[in-house]
């Protein structure tokens, strides 16, 4: 399965607007995307399409995320999510 480790650039972390954009983006693609802090085992990853689950990760700015995608658009979904997480909040 395609996967990637990406640093969370927005300073406040994966909260508020960056988090909702992240979930919206994950939902736009024909792919099942799951996410967790870097090093998270497969079984402990949570759904990237649930705002509640993503909020529960409590990821701070500067931390790294492991993102796994499965499905027809998996690679495109990972590209879009990586770009989003690499964008400072004031440019989102």
């Amino acid at each position, binding site marked *: 399965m395609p996967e990637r480790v990406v640093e969370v650039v927005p300073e406040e*972390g994966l*909260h*508020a*607007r960056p*988090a*909702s954009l992240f*979930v*919206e983006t994950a*939902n736009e693609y024909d792919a099942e995307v799951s996410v967790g802090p870097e090093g998270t085992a497969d079984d402990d990853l*949570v759904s990237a399409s*649930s*705002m*509640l*689950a993503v*909020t*529960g*990760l*409590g990821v*701070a700015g500067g931390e790294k995320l492991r993102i796994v995608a499965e499905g027809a658009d998996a690679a495109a979904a990972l590209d879009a999510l990586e770009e989003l997480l690499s964008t400072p909040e004031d440019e989102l």
Partner: protein
Amino acid sequence: MNETELKELIDVELISLDEPPAEKEAVIEHLLDLAVEAGRVSDREQALADLLAREEESTTGVGMGIGIPHAKTAGVAEPTLAFTRSSEGVDFGAMDDEPATLFFMILVPEASSDDHLQILSSLSRSLVHEETREKLHAAETSERVQEIIIAEVA
């Protein structure tokens, strides 16, 4: 947070099991008023402005029937968590379009670090589980709700 701090955070006075108003902003004010009546809010206007500014950025209707309005604000001196629930459901603008039925308001003082985000993430982690949500709906007293929240957030 230890148990004493958690009991202080979500005092039984901050829990209401009565049906809240049917509209999002009114629910937020209703939760805020629980905190005001419990003597936890020094500046209601400021706290409300900070809560609504956060909603403006992106909704705290996080789906699965949960709304968690929250803010860091000069309007409180101590971390404060208020709870109410609805049997009707309230449109909280969630991405999954599910009406919210469980509401938690988190207010932390301006000077605190990121305590509210920690409370927010541990609450969210536990609320992902259907069992937790069902327990909160089934609870018959404020004391029971307090017990559940303390067990889940700790």
